[in-house]
């Protein structure tokens, strides 16, 4: 009875949820595998899309791993890591987000039997790390450089990379069309790192084939006042003036008040105000500009004034558009109309207002610096264009990456099979437990070709066996063989131009291994009770929580 009297030691705050040990590790692995299963079917050219409603009722249809992971709104602590690696892959290389999630989940799945058998997870982690280093070295070794080719040739090769990325997306049917467009856009901005120089404008309606690339800037017609239609809508080699001021008749100072004692002075005040605005407008006209753009409003008076003088103007232009015009046309944005020197004016070959679908667009093309590009996307439904934009973003990132580190590897699961083979061979040279672990790492890599087959409805086992046979050939000629998505057999991915930049694969292997190791190294989760304010909805959620009855105290309200 004495032990009963012993006071209970309260270490953690009441309501804290803890779970620990092997069971905890296994349950984390299970959670991660479950998340991996969600995105599994989106991989590859025959991958499917997900339709996700969020809390607000808005809907996204996507094939992009990172987007899906973000929208799933995952709260499980271990599974959240997968969301993070998908995001990091997205921001680092822009593509391969599904791959990275799938690989991480598969690594853990392979580790699970070992953990169940009582292997210390640190052992696993060490072997996984070694395996990933070896794998990355192998990728680098296998990668083929496209450096030193002529611009035309390089463009073709880059387009191949972009096409591989796009093939799994909704716009896959027109991948060549979009791939060339993306390559042209990326080439246009050159080495500059400012990705926002590539604008993507979405215009619902029309067909995706109607999408086009402007070697300059395009933006939607802004709100216009009466008189706008009387302005000319097309110029050749116009001077472009960019402003950040309001051209409106208004009080110059907010809080100023004028007191008049003599009614006859009235007119002079009115005239003075008009003179201020006319002075501004005159200066704009004097500068020789034919197109005046401002980030702030251009009022009806100014619109009519410009219309009288055959000048085009647009007010309330979005800042990013204005900056892009500045970059493209070579002008600078002015905050005053005083002292406008010719150097601050931009120019372009053609300026035109054009009808695109239901909208009118202002298009500046043939800009001297040529450092911007705008892709105008067309498509049948809003969801469609949204998804197309995400896909193009991926493709743009891939091309940019490929321009910088110009090495590519064969896709279609070929590189994964080759690394897998290499690691398997390597593992045989190791004595000790590590052999098993590296072998299982190698097996996990095979998930990519296997999933490609599964998604396409092929017999995965059959295809994988064919692939293994090819890759096991001593001569090494089987190395570039991957899944042939069209026939259900195998084919030389390299010859079929299914290419990925090497950096995508390297980053994916790195991030997935990192994530797997991180999850393996966790053996205890301590979950603090939700703060008082969030108690209302948290109490319910915790009640269903994992970890059985342990530490599940209901707080007083």
């Amino acid at each position: 009875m004495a032990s009963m009297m012993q006071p209970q030691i309260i270490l953690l705050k009441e309501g804290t949820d803890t779970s620990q040990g092997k069971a905890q590790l296994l349950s984390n692995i299970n959670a991660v595998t479950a998340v991996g299963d969600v995105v599994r079917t989106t991989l590859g050219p025959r991958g499917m899309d997900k339709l996700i409603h969020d809390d607000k009722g808005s809907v996204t249809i996507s094939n992009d791993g990172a987007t899906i992971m973000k929208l799933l709104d995952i709260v499980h602590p271990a599974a959240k890591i997968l969301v993070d690696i998908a995001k990091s892959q997205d921001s680092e290389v822009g593509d391969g987000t599904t791959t990275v999630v799938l690989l991480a989940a598969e690594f853990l799945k392979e580790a699970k039997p070992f953990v169940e058998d009582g292997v210390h997870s640190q052992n696993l982690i060490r072997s996984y790390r070694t395996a990933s280093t070896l794998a990355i070295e192998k990728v680098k070794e296998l990668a083929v450089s496209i450096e030193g080719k002529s611009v035309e040739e390089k463009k073709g090769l880059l387009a191949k990379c972009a096409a591989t990325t796009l093939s799994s997306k909704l716009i896959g049917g027109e991948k060549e069309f979009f791939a060339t467009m993306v390559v042209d856009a990326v080439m246009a901005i050159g080495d500059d790192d400012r990705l926002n120089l590539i604008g993507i404008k979405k215009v619902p309606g029309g067909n995706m084939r109607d999408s086009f690339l402007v070697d300059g800037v395009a933006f939607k017609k802004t709100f216009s006042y009466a008189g706008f239609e009387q302005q000319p809508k097309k110029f050749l080699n116009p001077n472009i003036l960019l402003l950040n001021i309001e051209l409106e008749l208004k009080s110059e100072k907010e809080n100023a008040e004028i007191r008049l004692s003599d009614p006859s002075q009235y007119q002079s005040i009115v005239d003075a105000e008009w003179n201020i605005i006319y002075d501004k407008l005159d200066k704009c006209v004097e500068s020789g500009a034919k197109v005046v753009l401002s980030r702030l409003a251009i009022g009806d008076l100014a619109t009519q004034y410009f219309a009288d003088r055959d000048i085009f103007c647009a007010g309330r232009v979005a800042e990013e558009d204005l900056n892009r015009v500045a970059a493209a046309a070579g002008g600078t944005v002015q905050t005053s109309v005083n002292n406008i020197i010719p150097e601050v004016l931009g120019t372009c070959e053609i300026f035109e207002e054009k009808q695109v679908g239901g909208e009118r667009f202002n298009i500046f093309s043939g800009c001297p610096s040529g450092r911007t590009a705008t892709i105008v996307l067309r498509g049948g439904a809003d969801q469609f264009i949204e998804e197309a934009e995400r896909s193009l973003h991926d493709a743009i990132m891939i091309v940019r990456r490929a321009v910088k580190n110009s090495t590519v590897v064969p896709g279609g699961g070929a590189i994964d099979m080759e690394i897998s083979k290499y690691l398997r061979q390597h593992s045989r040279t190791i004595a000790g437990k590590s052999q098993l672990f590296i072998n299982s790492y190698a097996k996990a890599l095979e998930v990519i070709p296997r999933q490609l087959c599964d998604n396409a409805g092929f017999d995965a086992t059959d295809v994988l066996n064919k692939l293994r046979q090819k890759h096991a050939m001593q001569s090494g000629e089987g190395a570039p063989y991957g899944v042939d998505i069209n026939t259900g057999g195998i084919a030389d991915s390299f010859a079929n131009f299914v290419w990925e930049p090497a950096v995508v694969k390297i980053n994916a292997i790195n991030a997935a291994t990192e994530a797997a190791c991180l999850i393996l190294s966790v053996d205890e989760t301590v979950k603090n009770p939700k703060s008082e304010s969030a108690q209302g909805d948290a109490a319910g959620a915790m009640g269903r929580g994992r970890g059985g009855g342990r530490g599940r105290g209901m707080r007083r309200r």
Partner: protein
Amino acid sequence: MALAFDEFGRPFIILREQDQKTRLRGIDAQKANIAAGKAVARILRSSLGPKGMDKMLQGPDGDVTISNDGATILEQMDVDNQIAKLMVELSRSQDYEIGDGTTGVVVMAGALLEQAERQLDRGIHPIRIAEGYEMASRVAVEHLERIAQKFEFDVDNYEPLVQTCMTTLSSKIVNRCKRSLAEIAVKAVLAVADLERRDVNLDLIKVEGKVGGKLEDTELIYGILVDKDMSHPQMPKQIEDAHIAILTCPFEPPKPKTKHKVDIDTVEKFETLRKQEQQYFDEMVQKCKDVGATLVICQWGFDDEANHLLMHRNLPAVRWVGGVELELIAIATGGRIVPRFQELTPEKLGKAGMVREKSFGTTKERMLYIEHCANSKAVTIFIRGGNKMMIEETKRSIHDALCVARNLIRNNSIVYGGGAAEITCSLAVDAAADKYPGVEQYAIRAFAEALDSVPMALAENSGLQPIETLSAVKSQQIKENIPFYGIDCNDVGTNDMREQNVFETLIGKQQQILLATQVVKMILKIDDVISNSEY
């Protein structure tokens, strides 16, 4: 929805509020989505063609719309299902881009989905179906290009344009005077078109409607119609050879924008102020008179004193004219919008041959016609009709006709309507199917079959035997190898659409096929629907 369970069978919480979410995946998701898409298409099916029926839709505020236009019907239906929304957007994109064929595109997509369902049951992978559809759509579009005929037209010879617009209008409620409406639409578009650049800005065409009169009274005004009357009832109702001052400043003493205050402490000062105000009015009117204006159109109002003065000085005026109308008037009359009286010059005046006020029937409502303008680049279509719903529907029909005329100016290729284009595409696609190895072949054949559903629906709506009629026309097309046999919806007695003058624009038809394929691909590609259960 639970994704995973631990060793005791308890679900993990992986997603936020996961038990409130439902998940539909795999073939079930596809089937559910297809069913939703088909349901939308079924609603519109009966609206297709010249014998198609209208739908009556009651809005949340009790307002009633009667329409035959696919885009309008779907918009008003306010659908909630996501897939159904995709179909609505599909119809809307067709509306934005082409303006016509909004019903046809949805019927087409519905048929494609129906066929896809059959292929899914056979166990064909959804993406392969979608890819097959894409191949087929390319074949169809190329085929259309081949059979399309160009026709020449110019400003004087616009008969072909009228014929095409008539095809569009024939399915609408206004078809009893389709000839005159089509002519109005074509003339309006030609008036504003820039034939060199092949660009038409439809903003320059104003469509006005007024309840009363009959549809036949609908007219095209080479000029502007303003729903305003003269500011003073005694002003002249008709001005010939008007010189119009277009003002954006009120007939009022000018006010500085900065906050101001006038200190009046003596009677003299008050007197001066009053006098000055009067002088302002006087000067303003004088200014207008001086430059030779015979009509003042003002964006703002003017008080009774000014009104009286204007009347007195015999200067008719219109007040409270909206900015958009003001702009149109300026464009039409070749005038400039003037922001200040000081800037009025004779050159800035707009010129119109005739300005007249017209009252309608027994009502006191009046409208102002500004006609015979210096520059007729802005026109107005004035619709009359028995009731408001009729006018609204006529507006929509005219819009469709305007869009068709615009498309023809952009690209003067046409294909034959009445389902002829679909039937010949169906034949072409069917023939092409055998050349494709692999599973796609089945999908391509399914596409050909889906194409048949448009003429089938046409025949059905016209009270013909759908299968008999379709097969008869099809065999006729093959036998004579002529692509313009279609469904004889109006019972004219011939299947030859060339004789019946039933045309559609090539781009409109191509767009229909491509858009429908695109959306169907999107729907087929979804295999997982995650949603909150309340949706």
